[in-house]
């Protein structure tokens, strides 16, 4: 098990080193395996493709950010909003150590509509994480439970994930301070929308009046 873990990480590191020095993917798994003195079989036992490696680097970073924030003493005191904020701050901090790879990886995946294939694993992971936080928030009353919308909240947070990531990629402020601000604002806005708002009350009131206020749709003139 331990050996295998090492190999996973070794392959990741070798791959990152390769793409960053050469600026492109290895020509084939064969070439890559040969250069690193492993058999193709070993490679395929762990990964099905180069994209699989990139995916695993991303999910690895994401998982680490999650574990890190969850291990913070203060975690349990945080509201869902704060937990989300803490996650993004931790993630951005971790991404710093792999910035070159992140830039490369995102550039390679190109401008596609929807989620780049290398982030598919991250998306599943993040949505699971976000759903948990949203559930907590709904339970505690921090977030409004809206019949058809609550299940969409996690999608909104995933969009924020993309926005923050893109912001950070383009950020050139010292210490990526602007990204901090982007996180603070972006997540706050998103959670404000999730929270109970006057519109909820208005909707509720409208419904009540429709049912009880003699305002039933009446087409007679």
């Amino acid at each position, binding site marked *: 098990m331990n050996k295998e873990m090492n190999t996973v990480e070794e392959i990741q590191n070798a791959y990152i080193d390769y793409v960053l020095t050469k600026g492109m993917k290895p020509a084939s798994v064969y070439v890559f395996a040969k250069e690193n003195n492993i058999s193709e079989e070993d490679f395929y036992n762990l990964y099905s493709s180069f994209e699989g490696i990139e995916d695993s680097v991303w999910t690895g970073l994401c998982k680490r950010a999650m574990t890190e924030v969850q291990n913070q003493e203060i975690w349990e005191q945080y509201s869902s909003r*704060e937990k989300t904020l803490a996650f993004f701050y931790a993630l951005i901090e971790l991404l710093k150590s792999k910035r070159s790879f992140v830039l490369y990886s995102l550039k390679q995946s190109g401008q596609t509509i929807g989620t780049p294939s290398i982030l598919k694993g991250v998306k599943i992971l993040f949505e699971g994480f976000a759903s948990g936080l949203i559930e907590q928030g709904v339970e505690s009353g921090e977030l409004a439970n809206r019949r058809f919308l609550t299940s969409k909240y996690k999608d909104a947070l995933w969009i924020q994930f993309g926005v923050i990531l893109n912001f950070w990629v383009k950020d050139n402020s010292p210490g990526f301070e602007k990204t901090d601000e982007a996180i*603070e604002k972006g997540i*706050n806005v998103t959670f404000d929308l999730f929270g109970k708002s006057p519109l909820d009350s208005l909707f509720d009131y409208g419904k009540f009046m429709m049912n009880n206020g003699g305002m039933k749709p009446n087409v007679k003139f």
Partner: protein
Amino acid sequence: MKEQDSIPTSKTERSAKFVKTGLKVGGNYIKHYSKKLFNPSLSKDELNLDNATDIYASLSELKGSALKVAQMLSMDKNILPKAYVDQFSLSQYNAPPLSGPLIVRTFSKYFGKAPSEIYDEFNIRSTNAASIGQVHQASLNGKKLAVKIQYPGVGDSISSDLKMVKPFAFRLLGMSQKELEVYMTEVEDRLLEETDYDLEIKRSIEFSEACRDIANVVFPTYYPELSSKRIITMDWIEGQHMKEFMNTNPSQELRNKIGQALWDFYNFQQHELRAVHADPHPGNFLITPDGKLGIIDFGCIKELPDDFYYPFFSLTSTDMLKDKGMTIKAFRQLEMIRENDDEAQIEFFYRLYKEMIELFAQPYMSNTFDFSQAGFFDKLYSFGEKVAQMPEFKQARGVKHFIYVNRTNFGLYNMLQNLGAEVRTDTWYPHLEVAV
């Protein structure tokens, strides 16, 4: 308390905020005049209150320097209508706080550790807003601490903030903004100094050391090793703010004692240190359970240069006002009378400023002064109102130092009035040995 939802920082966002306020204020006027159609006796008080509420709501969302400006406007009770003042005074207490994770992040950026690793206890919810920062309770080795944390990006946004506030603030005050550049620079300089926590902690230590012997005044101990560019750690001072204190119906004796401490603190600084804690709003003071005055913020210090100190205090504290020639000379030094003023203007401003200084200096004219007497403040306010309506004062006059000196002294008078204190005013005299 509701947590801060967002801090608009980019200029466009801030403009949007002000535009929104502008629209609302416009709306309030419409509301006012439409109500007036039906009720001609409606006074402008309600309108002013509506406006102030909206302006305050907008400013408190802006935080940072805009909040500072709100605080400053609320100091000058003599200029603003009463309703504005009451609302702006709110900004001196509570502004909504920033998110916990950003606080943790600020700590890890400057100390490489989470607050829980630095202090034995750290309350992630802030207890007070400090206008460009917020205050958290913490403890270390059994000592209760106050930790002040600065909002990120405050320094960057001050200039753009002030540019925003400028036209707005002066429309509010009914003044033109063109000639106010020099004053705005002064305000900007002070505000930028206030964002420098390294400087603040240095000054806090210096000033609390220098003022140590003043009776009934207490300062927190500051901890430079637990402070940084964005964080200041000091002792937590137990106590009540002035309003709470007054609600407990303190005895006249106690009020006089606190008032005396305030008076001595300010006059000692002005005359002995030639630099003064220029932020005398009630939020910066606490009255401790043993009846002393706690002073908790040295962010804003105004130094008094000689070319201001001598002419100004010669006017207030000597017989100079009896000598018209000398008085006018001093007014010229202080740019209250200007080079290109004609005879009529000189005469006009001479009379007006003389009246103002006589009023201002009244507490110094006898050994003791009772700040609870309404007469003095009525005169002060009505003078302010009279001046505010004079077209001659649409232009700004006087050297830039007046902004903070006036703010300091009116702030001091205001607090003494709120306390209803009678104080000995002969404790610290100006040093005017060097002739003007």
